[in-house]
């Protein structure tokens, strides 16, 4: 397949993001936990930066909305009157749906929930759609959060588990079929079989995305996807 282009990278560390203009509906904002708000916000910010309407929205998360899941579990166990909000917000495609609803985007929408590999799955899916489906631009958002509970569990399995430097990390980027003036890199997936990255206990698939963003934007890290056969070339 032909290589495809990366642009308009926005991360959870990006500054100067105005949440009220990105997520205008106050009721919607109120119901969203931090991870949901962050991932939705940076997704919309990436669309605005690129000024292209994506023809597919792909989201990728290793473990989804752990805080919402825990909240609902707590409610279940305490026999409180169950609020549907955390249940609904724990649905893995919530962010993709939020971005679509806010930007009134009816195009294809898909979510990969495949542990650490999810972001790589998203890159593969995007390239396929751009190369064979006649898509011109696709939004990818990778996001994950860590909770004390999950850290506790991870440490029991591997006592060397480190707490990530941020509880939430998320990266959004726009992938295009053709080079634009905003393109910062291009990538191509190699051998499908090489994308086999379940062995990491690391909690964040977004960490993979953050490393890619760092490789592209700061030149500080090597291509974190090289081991998985995904070639990345900086422009």
């Amino acid at each position, binding site marked *: *397949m032909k290589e495809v282009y990366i642009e308009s990278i926005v991360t959870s560390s990006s500054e100067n993001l105005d949440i009220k203009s990105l997520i205008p509906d106050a009721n919607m904002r109120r119901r969203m936990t931090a991870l949901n708000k962050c991932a939705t916000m940076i997704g919309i910010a990436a669309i605005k930066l690129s000024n292209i309407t994506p023809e597919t*929205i792909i989201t990728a998360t*290793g*473990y*989804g909305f752990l805080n919402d*899941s*825990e909240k*609902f*579990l*707590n409610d*279940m*166990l305490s026999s409180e009157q*169950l*609020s*549907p909000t955390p*249940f*609904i917000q724990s*649905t*893995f*495609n*919530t962010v*993709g*749906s939020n971005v*679509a*609803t806010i930007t*009134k*985007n*009816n*195009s*294809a*929408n*898909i*979510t*990969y*929930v*495949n*542990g650490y*590999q999810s972001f790589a*799955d998203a890159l593969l*899916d995007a390239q*396929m*759609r751009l*190369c*064979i*489906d006649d898509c011109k631009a696709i939004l990818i958002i990778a996001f994950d959060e860590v909770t004390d*509970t999950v850290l*506790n*569990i991870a440490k*029991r*399995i591997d006592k060397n588990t480190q707490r990530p430097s941020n509880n939430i990390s998320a990266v959004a980027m726009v992938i295009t079929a053709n080079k634009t003036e905003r393109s910062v890199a291009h990538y191509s*997936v190699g*051998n*499908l*079989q090489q*994308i*086999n990255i*379940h062995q990491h206990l690391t909690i964040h698939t977004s960490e993979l995305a953050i490393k890619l963003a760092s490789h592209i934007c700061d030149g500080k890290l090597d291509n974190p996807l090289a081991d998985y056969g995904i070639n990345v070339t900086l422009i």
Partner: protein
Amino acid sequence: MLFGIAGIGLISSIGLCYKETLDNLKGSSCGIRLPNQQTHYRYDVPVGDVSLSNQELQQRVHTDNKAVHSRTALLSYVAFQEAVTHAQTIIDATPSDRIAVISATTVGGMDCSPLFYKEYIKDTSKGRLRNIVGHPCHSHLSLLSEGKFKECYHSDISTACSSSANTIATGCRLIAAGLADVVICGGTDALSSYTIDGFKSLMIYDKELCRPLSSDRTGLNLGEAAGYIVIASDDYLKNLKADTSQMIYIKGDGNACDAYHQTALSPDACGPTMAMQKALSKAGLTPDGIDYIHMHGTGTANNDSTELHAIRNIFGASAPSFSSTKGHTGHTLAAAGVLGVIFSYMAIESQSAWGTLRLTSPMDSECGHPPLSKNTPMRINNVISNAFGFGGNCTSIIIGKL
């Protein structure tokens, strides 16, 4: 490109395998049980449960990986094994690096997680790891990675009730891109107190057996199931000298986002309409090329009326026959999409469209005729099967003979 369905496996409340399921569809059997009839579950709502306990399911798992407790994973193993056994010849003839597995789940190991969590919240050093290690969605893939499948590309999709339909679209795309020759696609979801309580909080249950497409319907029943299909391109199958004379193909798929609300579809049925339109377009078919619509038809007020609205949008006043099988199996969440495709396959194979159970007062469809209430023999070449999920994720798949 046409993608032949070379293998099928499924397990649900109406059958532990393909043949049993087909017999039960032909017999209009209902797999949903009332609370006083439930077996190993003790839920206070009707559910479509698989009639095997976790222990019985574990006995069917013949892998090195014995430490699997999540019912979602166990169900996926059984269905996957049936599908790949059915397609054994094709799989044996294909190297591992040309095979991919795309699965889907929304529940993952959440059937076991509350067992961990209720101990953990009392004391954070407590809670058995075995009840939580299977929690993530991708955990069940380990049961689909034995033997020949160990080195294959595996992925997992989770888009609520359209999840497994989306795996089929992704599988077709992998083949069309030349990255794989054979893909096993499908999904799995077990019943769990988390989802039972979740749907309770949404208040969209029927307290009795659900009545999809009835004008006095009050909601859905949940079910559990797993289903997988093995697909390969027509050219690839012919090159392997497979007998394709009776082959049924995936002809097109369409996915769209309704972009309206998390849990309700839009009044103008935008997402469902676009999904069906895209599938028709991809299949190169006009609406009159469809012989039967296997609906998502959950039995909720919102879904059934919106879906009929979408059918009217596309098919007008002369729609083909349409029905729902959610009254047989309950709503099996992530597995619903692939189950719909398999039931559509069975309809083509039997040349019979499935009746909607308990259709006491059929909705006025304004499509020229009411939903089918009984199994109806008819000439069926092409079927469109719908799966619509929370977040407005709408997917339609068209299957048919050449």
